[in-house]
């Protein structure tokens, strides 16, 4: 792989890179730009191997690229288990691959300053759902705090370079990163607070009082935040699903969403010749964005007989000559150190591979876009009841139409409450924010009006056949919530 994978020209984006910084990787000095992630700086310098399998000793790379999957963990300045995909690189930083066995930090004591915080509404996760909750509840008069573990605010909106669908109220027609900018400005104007690089680590609620511990990374040390909150909204998003196939561990195989961050936020090319597995909207959008970043897309494959996402997204790729092969799956990834090829194969109506239909593809990049799973680890700490929603293929916290879970004062919104899309996330966030204001009697009439309007917009959105599964799943979820509540009485 070429050493310099920096994107210099892009049809939509201008990359504003920070100051050049020097950092050490495995004792060797490399260069990066201030404010980019360690993982992006490493990748731009040609480093693809981020670790080794504990059992088989084969090389592994990063996968999700958005701080969820743990495959990018490294030892940074003597501290183990640092998520390099969401940690900014700094001058003089020492980065090393972790050994097979865990090792404690170099320094036994790491300075931790403590601070107590209180919020009427604590929001965990600052993507489209969290931002909308924050804006809505702050405007209605509540004291709101958003915490998010990423260094750049805005969740996954910041890497979306395509124009959003939906209606004008949910910023349709604007590109995701522009929407993030507008929402953050809206939050700033109404005085909502947003802490970046702040990880929620544990729920310690008792007797109907909610308390979360969080750690904020600061220049040189950490701050432990003890946040008490009257209400909590968990908008923790989702992570990319993985797919089992021979060779799937090889560096060069990444979650499609992670690659978006790498190329659209940090301006680093993920590879040169790509295969995309999955043709939902994520796969289709990322395929198009790879072309914009100057990456060749050899094919998109889909196990189902039909494309999963919107035809307009697929058409954008098709008319540029990218083959979209429905009824195909990946048989294996090839390579020793990195991916250097893939074998794909046609499947029959029972999704079984048809021998003799193998096709070899010359690729150095395989992107997995086979759906997302709701990130529910944080909300599970509260002891909430969850249910498996077959329509969504996922475990989600049981919640009602107000987005309140089975524990009073705790809400959920966005992909963390069941995978849908950005407009849904914003509307659910708005509903949660307004429902809290209504309950707490902050501008209750206005809050009710906002909530009702969001309900009606959400139901208009859900008339789409693309959201049929979400609608059915959410309905069952509400029924289950009613059941749990009547049992409690």
């Amino acid at each position, binding site marked *: 792989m070429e050493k310099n994978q920096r994107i210099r020209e892009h*049809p939509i984006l201008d990359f504003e890179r920070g100051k050049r910084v020097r950092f050490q990787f495995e004792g060797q000095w490399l260069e990066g730009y201030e404010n980019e992630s360690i993982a992006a700086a490493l990748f731009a310098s040609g480093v693809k191997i981020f670790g080794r399998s504990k059992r088989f000793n084969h090389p592994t790379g990063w996968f999700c690229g958005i701080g969820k999957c743990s495959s990018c963990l490294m030892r940074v300045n003597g501290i183990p288990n640092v998520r390099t995909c969401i940690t900014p690189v700094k001058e003089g930083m020492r980065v090393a691959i972790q050994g097979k066995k865990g090792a404690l930090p170099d320094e036994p004591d790491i300075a931790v300053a403590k601070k107590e915080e209180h919020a009427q509404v604590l929001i965990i996760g600052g993507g489209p759902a969290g931002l909308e909750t924050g804006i809505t509840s702050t405007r209605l008069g509540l004291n709101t705090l958003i915490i998010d573990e990423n260094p750049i605010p805005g969740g996954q909106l910041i890497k979306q370079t395509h124009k959003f669908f939906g209606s004008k109220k949910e910023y*349709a*027609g604007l*590109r995701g990163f522009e929407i993030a900018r507008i929402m953050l400005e809206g939050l700033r104007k109404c005085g909502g607070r947003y802490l970046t690089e702040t990880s929620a680590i544990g729920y310690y609620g008792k007797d109907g009082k909610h308390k979360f511990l969080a750690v904020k990374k600061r220049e040189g040390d950490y701050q432990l935040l003890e946040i008490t909150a009257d209400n909590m909204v968990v908008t923790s998003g989702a992570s990319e699903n993985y797919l089992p196939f021979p060779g799937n561990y090889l560096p060069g195989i990444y979650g499609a969403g992670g690659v978006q961050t790498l190329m659209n936020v940090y301006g680093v090319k993920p590879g040169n010749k790509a295969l995309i597995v999955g*043709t939902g909207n994520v796969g289709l959008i990322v395929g198009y964005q790879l072309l914009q970043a*100057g990456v060749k897309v050899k094919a998109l494959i889909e196990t189902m007989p039909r494309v999963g996402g919107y035809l307009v997204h697929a058409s954008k790729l*098709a008319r*540029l*000559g990218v083959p979209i092969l429905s009824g195909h799956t990946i048989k294996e990834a090839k390579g020793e150190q990195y991916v250097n090829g893939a074998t794909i194969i046609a499947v029959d109506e029972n999704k079984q591979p048809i021998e003799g239909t193998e096709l070899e593809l010359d690729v150095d990049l395989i992107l997995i876009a086979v759906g997302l799973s709701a990130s529910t680890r944080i909300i599970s700490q509260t002891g909430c009841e969850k249910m498996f929603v077959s329509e969504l293929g996922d475990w989600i916290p049981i919640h009602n139409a107000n987005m309140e879970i089975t524990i009073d004062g705790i809400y959920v919104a966005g992909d963390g409450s069941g995978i849908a899309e950005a407009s849904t996330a914003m509307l659910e966030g708005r509903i949660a924010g307004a429902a809290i204001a209504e309950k707490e009697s902050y501008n209750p009439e206005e809050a009710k009006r906002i909530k009702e309007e969001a309900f009606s917009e959400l139901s208009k959105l859900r008339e*789409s056949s693309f959201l049929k599964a979400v609608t059915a799943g959410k309905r069952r979820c509400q029924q289950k919530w009613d059941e749990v509540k009547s049992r409690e009485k």
Partner: protein
Amino acid sequence: MKNEPREIGYLTYDVLKKKIGLPSRERLAKGPVAIIECTEDIPCDPCVEACKLGAISKASLTTPPDIDYEKCTGCGSCVDLCPGLAIFVIKMNYEEEKALVSIPYEMLPVPKRGERVDALDRSGKKIGAGEIVKVTRGKGATFVVSIAIGKDLAMEARSIQMQGK
């Protein structure tokens, strides 16, 4: 043989004609007109907002857009605002032999006026060549590239490719 749009990933002329109804020969002869190649129930409506003449309507947020070819003047203001990049403008009466096709385009290098490019159909197949007559960039940051091309290709040409690539 796969030929359903969702099996192959793109619309074909026949499906379009059936599903959305294309402008008549007479309408095409009168001047430029937009063609909205959007057939699914995507919750989306910026095209309705974009048209100041009220030529585009939607029965609900999720129904495919309906365009009144008589009201449409082919001004192209919807082309760069459609999130699906699914709107094209055809000016069949551009020249004696040639039609002008305006295409939303977001790739590098940015096409330049006067350049000769290959024209690709909806499947990405090269079907001919044309000259770039105009390149504009609206507030949506999408380039709208207009190419002069043989009239027989106007209903098929939906993308471009730099020659020699």
